[in-house]
């Protein structure tokens, strides 16, 4: 065999072999570590496939925590929504009222009064009979539309009414509503315009 010409300079020991060999342990360990890191990354960034969760938010809870909620602007915006749902049908989304249906709120002296006592009594007790609004006489009847709303929501609506359409008046607090509710009692009767005028602003 020794005189057989060598066709290749590589030593025969370097020839590839086809025997089975064990996978090194470190490959298993590396795979497990990579899987673990991948799972951690997914947990932090995946948002569990929630359609509302985009980066940079990692989860629905994180997204919830960043919803702008505090402050006057948010209360004002909430008041706008509630006004349009509860009051806008009669008083108009623009606050201009509707003939023979509801007096205007924009620029109304009832809304722009210094105090809020009369104003808070209207949605809580209701108002019936003749009233003067912006130099015009209105003889209509309004039910206690706001009595079912929670204090904070009604306060937001009244804050919106006082701040919107150039009325430019300050906020109405939940305490104002609570005080008015207490004054009216559990079984309100609609107040008349004369009764209203006897009450302080």
């Amino acid at each position, binding site marked *: 065999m020794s005189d057989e010409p060598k066709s290749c300079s590589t030593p025969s020991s370097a020839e590839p072999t086809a025997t089975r060999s064990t996978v090194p342990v470190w490959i298993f360990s590396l795979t497990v570590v990579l899987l673990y890191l991948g799972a951690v990354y997914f947990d932090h960034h995946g948002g569990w496939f929630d359609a509302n969760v985009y980066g940079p938010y990692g989860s629905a809870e994180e997204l919830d925590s960043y919803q702008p909620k505090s402050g006057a602007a948010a209360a004002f915006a909430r008041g706008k929504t509630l006004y349009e749902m509860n009051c806008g049908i009669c008083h108009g989304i623009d606050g201009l009222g509707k003939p023979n249906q509801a007096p205007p709120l924009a620029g109304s002296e009832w809304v722009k009064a210094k105090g809020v006592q009369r104003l808070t009594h209207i949605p809580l007790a209701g108002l019936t009979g003749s009233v003067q609004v912006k130099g015009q006489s209105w003889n209509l009847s309004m039910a206690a539309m706001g009595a079912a709303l929670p204090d904070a929501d009604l306060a937001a609506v009244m804050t919106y009414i006082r701040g919107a359409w150039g009325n430019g008046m*300050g906020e109405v607090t939940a305490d104002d509503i609570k005080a008015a509710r207490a004054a009216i009692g559990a079984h309100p009767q609609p107040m008349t315009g004369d009764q209203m005028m006897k009450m302080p602003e």
Partner: protein
Amino acid sequence: MKNGCSVFLAAFIALGASWWGFVLAPVLQLGTAKQTAVLNSSDIYPNQRPGDATLGLQVYRADGCAACHTTQVGQEGVACEIALTSLGKNQPVEFKKFIASLLDLPRLRPSSNSVTSQMQSWTGTVPQIIVTNLDVDTANNLLQHINAAGCKAEVQIVATGVDIARGWGMRRSVAEDFLWDDPVQLGSLRVGPDLADVGTRLNNAGWQLLHLYAPQSVAKNSSMPPFRFLFETRKSKTSGVPSPDALNLPTELAPPDGYEIVPTADAKNLVAYLLSLHAGVPLYDAPFTSRQASTNAPANKK
């Protein structure tokens, strides 16, 4: 074939998995997307684009605008800032000292650097942004301290990132932005600026038309090619007075006397589409405090 069955199975699983990942999962996730409510508002977003803007999307597509422009704003982070809305009975000078002492607290220090630069010369006008770049827990913590001192403040949410710093939008783009678009023209290469908020940024139809006809006449050093085939040169119908549509071009680009350059329907539709692009509405999935809402807030003069 010896392993026909397993080859078929392997191919089936490979194609099925990609179909599941690329087609089925997105449809399950976003296929039922609807209009959503704008944050802190009774408005619904997005409204369907006007008819001419819907046609303009097809012009945008046909002219290959998406090859050089994206319509997606990126967002890298989110930060809170504290805006003071009322001082209560406190004096501005005392309030500044109070804030400085608060920011020295160890649990507030790591994320908050300092008060804003406007606070140096602040004289007590509200609303005023006091501290920026806070995380939500620190901001709420700080807010409690400020409220406890008898002041009124609110936490404002601000989206941060390169695109937002450039003024390309107020927040990242989300799926709702593209609800009415077919096909969606996302784009992937930015030779020109992002257009997701161009209707807010450059909301002048005359400027847009001029920019399409001769980009360099309004944006110097722009690499955008002119889209003159969207315009036609025609004889002035009325001598002396240009028709309302005619472009108001600088002298070196102006057509010869007696002629005028007017946009075709395609150009008008394309501009209508560009003007309908907005990314400035706060949504649940991309929240930020709208400046609009802050300026509409009632005056604090009870």
